[in-house]
């Protein structure tokens, strides 16, 4: 068959396929019959594309058919794109993604705790570490029985420190997450570095018998803040693992899939940092709020964050029967 006859015979099919596939692309709920019909014509387009690619490479028909083949693949093989709903995202999608990352969150948490203990021990038994970590002015303040956190309410307005704290914590979480792109090493580094730093800071304050005061400062926001950073680091680790060990899937599919799941975790965590910024800027340094209330607030925040995640486990049946499609 020559080119002109090929085009004349098949052109109506290509035009109708392009029209229907473009319309289907914008449509969410396609009927089974519509998908079946489109899939049949897609196969014809693929056949024509293969023919044109071999017999008439570089011609207008070959280029048109290539675009139609890509369009058809995109429409028919797209992954389930549900209508975005904030409620569904925070109560279904995000908790499920966190649950899937639990093994990696566990690894990040374990490393955080180990390096935290190490930091604490180093700071307690090596006095020079205090100056290296906190700087001489803050150590002087500890000598005089004052925590550096007291200045948060006197030197900087809480509204400003809230924003600064929130964006700083979000940067840490983003680094922990994006560090997964370095085969997970960046995520591990954030977990371990923050663990060491926190352990060392508590160790230093313990040397000056002020660990209790520091604990009072962090009790309202610290628990959830660390949870969020470790969850993001765990999601980053999941991406790093997919890079290193793609499993049965090609790496070009496994890695983007892991990154999309990781993205859900990250996006679900970020709003909490804004809330925590307000807590840390306004409530944590406040001398007017009793420690008990701060502790209860910290506990409540943690429970609010973890409840949708935990509920998903409770809802899961012990064994899911295999579904056989007709």
């Amino acid at each position: 068959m020559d080119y002109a006859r090929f085009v004349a015979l098949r052109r109506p099919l290509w035009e109708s396929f392009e029209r229907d596939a473009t319309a289907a692309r914008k449509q969410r709920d396609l009927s089974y019959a519509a998908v079946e019909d489109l899939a049949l014509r897609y196969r014809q387009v693929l056949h024509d594309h293969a023919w044109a690619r071999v017999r008439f490479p570089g011609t207008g028909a070959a280029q048109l058919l290539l675009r139609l083949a890509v369009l058809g693949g995109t429409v028919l093989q797209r992954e389930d794109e549900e209508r975005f709903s904030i409620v569904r995202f925070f109560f279904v999608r995000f908790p499920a993604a966190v649950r899937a990352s639990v093994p990696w969150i566990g690894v990040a948490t374990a490393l955080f705790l180990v390096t935290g203990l190490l930091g604490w021990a180093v700071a307690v038994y090596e006095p020079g570490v205090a100056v290296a970590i906190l700087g001489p002015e803050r150590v002087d303040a500890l000598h005089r029985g004052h925590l550096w956190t007291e200045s948060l309410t006197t030197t900087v307005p809480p509204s400003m420190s809230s924003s600064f704290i929130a964006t700083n914590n979000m940067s840490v979480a983003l680094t922990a997450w994006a560090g997964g792109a370095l085969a997970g090493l960046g995520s591990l580094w954030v977990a371990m570095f923050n663990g060491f730093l926190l352990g060392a800071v508590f160790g230093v304050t313990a040397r000056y018998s002020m660990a209790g005061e520091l604990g009072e400062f962090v009790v309202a926001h610290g628990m959830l803040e660390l949870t969020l950073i470790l969850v993001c680091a765990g999601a980053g680790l999941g991406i790093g693992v997919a890079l290193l060990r793609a499993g049965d899937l090609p790496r070009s599919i496994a890695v983007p899939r892991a990154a999309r799941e990781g993205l859900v975790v990250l996006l679900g965590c970020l709003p909490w940092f804004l809330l925590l910024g307000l807590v840390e800027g306004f409530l944590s340094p406040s001398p007017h709020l009793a420690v008990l209330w701060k502790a209860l607030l910290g506990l409540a925040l943690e429970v609010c964050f973890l409840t949708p995640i935990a509920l998903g486990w409770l809802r899961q049946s012990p064994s899911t029967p295999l579904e056989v499609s007709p």
Partner: protein
Amino acid sequence: MTTDDFSPELGTVLSLDNVPVELPLARVGSRVLAGVVDYFLLFLVVLLWSVGMITLSSGLGLRPGWGIGFWILGAFAIEYGYFAAQEIVTDGRTLGKRVFGLRVVARDGAAAGNGALLVRNLVRSIDLLFGVPLMALDPLARRLGDRLAGTLVVHQRKAHEELVVARLPTGWGAAETQLVESYLRRARELEPEARLALGRRLERFVDERAPGFLPGAPGPDPLPRLWNGFREGQP
């Protein structure tokens, strides 16, 4: 005579059904240049935001702490959102990419999804360190963000997919078809001298290879004769 006036390096990837798709990949040079333009524009946007916040704070009589607080949050959102927001809204193109005719697409050549565009831009901070050497070494010129998101950056090329040929001499193959299609498609955009010169060469080529295929005799402008011959008289 070639059919393409612009032939950047092509990279072949496989679409979802293993259809080989040849994409004009954007290499490290054009991508770095687009990045430089974008980071300059990002700086300007942050500057505008700063001026706007100062004006707004003084206009509304906000306490300094609140003004700076909002400025910090806005600057953070601009820093992380500038690239992703533009790519999501304008189908894979930032202003810098527009300047250099680049576009982000999915690895199979289709339009990139919103999630993929977010992912590739959220690892930008790490790519500022490792991106350039990775792009230079990778056959598909991908940085870390592209690998994670499953995306590629390509040169935007006008698709030559218009079906302008309705009849051909018997036995003509792809090369001759491309030649005719290319001329008929571009004839009206060419300079008059170039259009006449190329048209006469093509007319002579057709008359030699397929005598009697083109209707009538050669005239001062070969385009109507070629057009009628290959389009069966369609205007």
